[in-house]
């Protein structure tokens, strides 16, 4: 290639005229100012989450659902289990927004009571999983060596147990109720969380800032609480968001095979199960509303979890 456009300097340094230079006003404060506002990890994650339309759709839906679960029944003149047999299988109307079911009960009211149960089961199961998982995984990962080996063997054994079969077995014996369902769901449910926490702790405990903490003589429990856990919060939160739909599904599944929450509660799974026969006779609304809310709630948690996974991953930070 032939060199073209080579700029020749025609001035030697002594020849550069003074008016080529401008003197800048000295402004100490502006010079120090940071162009972009400094964002904490959480602010940055939030900013990225807001940009994710699907995740925000999920979040908005879940917030609305939670509001309706709390206040929905207040707006309705009907009771959850108020039966009105002459009024059975009314299609949706101004009087019964979601229609009525086989016993003439208002589906609108029952849907929000179902939301209470499903959200409560899902969130409680996730919280208990996190608590056990953090303690188990934190100790196992931090201590390492023999402790870790034994704790991980126990996890491997529990991990092999088929989740829903164990839940079914426990519920057959304990008898289905709100608290026994939550207990059964968490007996083996925490294992996944413990694995994730352990993985995180194993990785972070080798970082310099943890070493610095140690060299100051900080106690192990404090290092776990102040150094390791806050830095592994991202994957923990993502796992939590994905645990909730699993628990909601499990509750609906259990209701479906006859191990669900018994009346006077109305869970979505019970409602869907009750209306199985009804759809064949054309009363679609009795199944549609619980089915729609189970599916959309799981959808919302799934997309929110996906969004959080991207938002909380520091590697994807722009």
């Amino acid at each position: 290639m032939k060199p073209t456009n080579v700029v020749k300097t025609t001035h030697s340094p002594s020849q550069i005229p003074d008016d080529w230079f401008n003197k800048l006003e000295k402004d100490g404060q502006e010079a120090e100012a940071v162009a972009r506002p400094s964002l904490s990890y959480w602010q940055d994650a939030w900013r990225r989450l807001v940009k994710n339309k699907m995740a925000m759709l999920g979040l908005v839906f879940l917030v609305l659902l939670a509001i309706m679960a709390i206040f929905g029944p207040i707006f309705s003149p009907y009771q959850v289990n108020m039966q009105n047999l002459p009024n059975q299988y009314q299609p949706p109307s101004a009087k019964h927004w979601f229609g009525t079911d086989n016993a003439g009960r208002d589906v609108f009211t029952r849907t929000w009571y179902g939301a209470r149960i499903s959200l409560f089961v899902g969130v409680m199961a996730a919280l208990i999983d996190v608590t056990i998982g953090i303690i188990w995984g934190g100790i196992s990962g931090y201590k390492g060596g023999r402790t870790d080996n034994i704790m991980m063997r126990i996890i491997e054994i529990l991990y092999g147990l088929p989740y829903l079969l164990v839940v079914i077995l426990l519920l057959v014996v304990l008898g289905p109720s709100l608290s026994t369902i939550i207990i059964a769901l968490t007996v083996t449910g925490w294992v996944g969380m413990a694995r994730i926490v352990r993985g995180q702790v194993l990785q972070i405990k080798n970082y310099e800032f943890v070493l610095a903490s140690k060299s100051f003589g900080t106690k192990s429990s404090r290092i776990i609480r102040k150094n390791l856990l806050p830095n592994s919060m991202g994957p923990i939160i993502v796992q939590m968001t994905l645990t909730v739909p699993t628990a909601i599904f499990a509750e609906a599944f259990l209701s479906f095979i006859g191990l669900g929450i018994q009346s006077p509660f109305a869970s979505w799974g019970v409602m869907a199960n009750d209306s199985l026969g009804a759809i064949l006779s054309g009363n679609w609304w009795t199944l549609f509303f619980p089915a729609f809310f189970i599916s959309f709630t799981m959808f919302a948690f799934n997309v929110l979890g996906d969004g959080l996974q991207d938002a909380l991953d520091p590697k994807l930070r722009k």
Partner: protein
Amino acid sequence: MLKYIFKRFGIMLVTLWIIITLTFILMINVPGSPFNSDQSSNETIQANLEAHYNLDEPYHIQYLLYLKSIVTFDFGPSIKQPNQSVNDLLGRGFPISFELGMMTIIVAVISGIILGIIASLKHNGFIDYLAMGLAVLGISIPNFILATLLIQQIAVNLEILPTATWSSPAHMILPVTALATGPMAIIARLTRSTMLEVLTQDYIKMAKAKGLSPWKIVFKHALRNALMPVVTIMGTLLAGILTGTFVIEQIFAIPGMGKYFVESINQRDYPVIMGTTVFYSAFLILMLFLVDIAYGILDPRIKFHKKGGE
């Protein structure tokens, strides 16, 4: 390698032992014990029960005999149906459930992988968004709801396919679709994300530079590595499909093991519940073991002699 298999085998045995022991403990603690005479009005049943569970022996002898009966594949009598043993039910129901499960797995794996590959090749394009949107929906809609929707729309409204039972290939389409959609969606998402990762690797660039056809690059070079994570979740997927058969068989009136199992739960037929749980757990644990071994053989990066952690 041998050491690894041996270790996995040991863990498998312990897991099995735990589930067997758990069923035994639960069985003696069941409210209104199944061995209570008022539970079963039938004398034959009562006699069967006493003979099988050696109820006059102390607990530890009962436990050992129970272990022995399970090892010899004898799950005892039903307490609701006279002269029916759990083995009879398993023998009748399991082949049908197995057929349903295998078809579901094959459909889910093939369609999931194809969907995942297409989505990854059209990354961020319309097809990618469409496929992944469908996948999230597939994960979110519970199989029993999908099943009822399919019956209502396709079997009742359009009358294209039969509503229920398990007698001809046409009868199998709806249940398999309902059961396969969830696992398919999971496989599609996983395949897509690992494919995207693998496609940026140097050896793929190398293959492109050599002038290999895109077809060959995808199927011969990329897919092989992209499928490793799919192998790891096969165990979990199998468990999901197996429990899925409980409700699907119920909804479609398929006379498989799942249907008997749900019936036994509703009738509180404890020996059937316990027997099926042990049998299915053993089946799943064995599958998990085989998946682990398969993974070890397929992935040359796993080093077996390395000590500690995974």
